[in-house]
C-alpha cells in the first residue's frame, strides 16, 4: 500500500501529471462510449454538410463536407488513436525488450550482432520506413500497428540493453548465477523488473509519438480507409480550409490534447520512477 500512497501524494503534488491522467481518462471514456452515444457508424450522414459548431442541433460540433457528425468522428477516432498507439508500442516493447535484454545480458558477439541490427533500423528515417511498410503491405489497421512497431522498437532495445549492462554486474545477479538459476529466469524474473521503470516512461511518450505518426499517415491518405481517424478527418478538412476551418481544427485539438496528456503522464512517471534523473527525452 505504501507504493499507492506515495503515488497518490506525487499525484497531488504534481498537478501536471494529475491533469494528464484526467485528460487521458477523458479520451478513454470517449473511446469506450463511442457506440453508446453514437450508435450509427461515424460515416453516416446525419444532416446538411458544412454546418458550423452550434449551427445544427443534431451535431454539437458541426458536420463535415459530407454531412457527417464531427463529434461522432471524434469519439470513434479516439478508439483508433488509442488502439494504434497502445498496440504498436506493446508490440515494439516485446520485441525491443527481448533484443535489448539478450544483447545486454550476454554481451560479446550476441550484443554486437543485435546492436548492429538495431542501428540499422535506426538508420532508416522513421516516418519514411513506416510509409514504405504501409505502401508495400497495404493500408490496414494491423499493418499500421506493425509499421509503427517496426520503427519504435530500436529505441526500447537500446534503453533495455543499457540497463542490462549495468544490472548484470550487480551482486544479486551474480548470486543468481552462483545458485544455478537458468538464464531466462535471471533475465525475465530478476533483472527485467528492475529495468522496467525507464521502459515504462519511454513507452508512455512513444505512445504519443505513435499516435501522432498514425494521424500523419491517415492525414496523407495512407491510413486504413475503413475507419474514421483523427488524421483522416484533418486530411479531409484540409479541402475546406477557407470556408469551414473548424473541420480540421477540432480533430487537431483532440490529437494535441491526447499527445500532451501522454507526455505529461510520462514526465510525471519519470519523476516518480527515477527521482534522481531529470526528464529525459529520446530523439525522433
Amino acid at each position, binding site marked *: 500500500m505504501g507504493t499507492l500512497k506515495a503515488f497518490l501524494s506525487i499525484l497531488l503534488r504534481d498537478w501536471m501529471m494529475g491533469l494528464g491522467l484526467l485528460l487521458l481518462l477523458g479520451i478513454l471514456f470517449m473511446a469506450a462510449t463511442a457506440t453508446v452515444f453514437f450508435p450509427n457508424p461515424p460515416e453516416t450522414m446525419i444532416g446538411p454538410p458544412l454546418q458550423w459548431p452550434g449551427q445544427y442541433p443534431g451535431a454539437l460540433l458541426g458536420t463535415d463536407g459530407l454531412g457527417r457528425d464531427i463529434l461522432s468522428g471524434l469519439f470513434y477516432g479516439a478508439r483508433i488513436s488509442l488502439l494504434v498507439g497502445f498496440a504498436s508500442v506493446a508490440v515494439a516493447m516485446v520485441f525491443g525488450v527481448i533484443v535489448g535484454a539478450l544483447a545486454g545480458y550476454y554481451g560479446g558477439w550476441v550484443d554486437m550482432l543485435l546492436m548492429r541490427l538495431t*542501428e*540499422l533500423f535506426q*538508420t*532508416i*528515417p*522513421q*516516418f*519514411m*520506413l513506416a*510509409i*514504405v*511498410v504501409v*505502401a*508495400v*503491405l*497495404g493500408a490496414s489497421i494491423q499493418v499500421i500497428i506493425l509499421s509503427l512497431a517496426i520503427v519504435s522498437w530500436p529505441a526500447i532495445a537500446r534503453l533495455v540493453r543499457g540497463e542490462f549492462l549495468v544490472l548484470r554486474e550487480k551482486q544479486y545477479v551474480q548470486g543468481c548465477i552462483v545458485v544455478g538459476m537458468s538464464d531466462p529466469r535471471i533475465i525475465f524474473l530478476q533483472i527485467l523488473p528492475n529495468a522496467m521503470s525507464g521502459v515504462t516512461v519511454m513507452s508512455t511518450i512513444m505512445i*504519443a509519438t505513435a499516435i*501522432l505518426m498514425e*494521424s*500523419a499517415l491517415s*492525414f*496523407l*491518405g*495512407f491510413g486504413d480507409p475503413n475507419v474514421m481517424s483523427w*488524421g483522416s478527418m*484533418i486530411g479531409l478538412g*484540409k479541402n475546406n*480550409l*477557407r470556408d469551414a*476551418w473548424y473541420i*480540421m*481544427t477540432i480533430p*487537431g485539438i483532440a*490529437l*494535441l*490534447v*491526447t*499527445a*500532451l496528456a*501522454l*507526455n*505529461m503522464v510520462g514526465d510525471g512517471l519519470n519523476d516518480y520512477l527515477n527521482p534522481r534523473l*531529470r*526528464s*529525459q*527525452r529520446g*530523439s*525522433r
Partner: protein
Amino acid sequence: MKPIRRRVPWAFLARRVLYGVLAILAIAVINFFLLQLAPGDAAEALAGQAGTADPQYIAQLRAQFGLDQPLWHQLWAFIVRLATLDLGYSYVFNEQVSVLIFQRMPATLMLMGTALTIAVAGGIVLGVTAARFANRWPDRLISLGALLLYGTPPYWIGLMMILVFAVMLGWTPTSGMENVLAFNTGWDRVVDIAHHLILPAAAQSIFYLAIYIRLVRAGMLEILSLDFIRVARAKGISERRLSYRHALRNAVLPLVTIVGTNVGNFLGGAVLTETVFSWPGVGRLMFDAMFQRDLNLLLSILVLSSTFVIIANLVVDLLYAIINPTVELK
C-alpha cells in the same frame, strides 16, 4: 595557449566508412526483400501505372528487370545497379530516378536548412533563457510552450499557419515555392521564393524547436550547478556572458547529437511539410511516389536518406571530438 592539435583519425574514418558502406548494403537488401512482399511484382505494378495490362509489355518489363531470374540473381543485379548509382527509370514520371531526385534536392535543402537554422538559434536562446530563470515565469512560459509544441502534430501546425497567416491575414502565399506565372528573374525571384519559404520553414522549425528547447534547458541546468560556474560568477562575470560563453559550450553536446540526427533525417522530415505546403522537393516526390505506387522510386529515396543518416552520424562523431577534445574516437 596553444591549440590542441589532433591527428586525422584515419583508422577511425576507414572503419566507419567501411561500416557505413556495409550498412547501406544491408538496408538495400532489406528494402529488396520488402519490395518482394508487395502484392504483384514490379512489372505488373509498372504496367498498371502505365495503364496497360498487355502481357507482352509485362513480360518485356520482367525481362528488363530480370524478374524472370532466380531471387539471388535479382538481388545481385539490384546491388550492382545501386553500386553504379543507376537507380533505374521511373515510368510514372518518365524520367531517370536519379535525375528526378537531384532536380528536387535544392528545394528540400533550402527548406530544411532554413528550418533547422531557425530552430537551432531559437532553441538555444529560449533554452538558455529558460535555464537562467529556472522555475520563474519566463521558464514556466517557455517550458509550457515547448510542451505544447511537442504534442502538436507538425502537419497540423502547418495547416493552422496557412489558415491564420495566408488565408485570414493574407501575409504570405498559401503554398508552392514561387509564383511561376510571374516569370520573375534575378532579385525579384529570390524575394518571391523567400516569401513562399517563410511559412513552411517556420512550421518545420517549430517541430524541432520543441525538442531543442527542452534539451538545451536540461543541459544548461546541469552545467549551471557545477563548481566552475560558481567560480566564474565569483569573478564577477556577467550572467549573460556566463550563460552563453561558459555554460553553453558544455551544454551543447547533446544538442549536437540531436541536430545531427535531424540533419541526417532531413528527407524524412520533409515529407509532411512539403506535402502540406505543396513544396516541390524530395519529400513531396516521395509522397507522389507512394501515392502512385512507384515502389522503385520510393525505395531509392529510402536508401538515399539512409545514406544521409550514416554520413550525418559520422560527421557528428567527428564534431564531438572537435568540440570536446577529451572524447576518444573509437
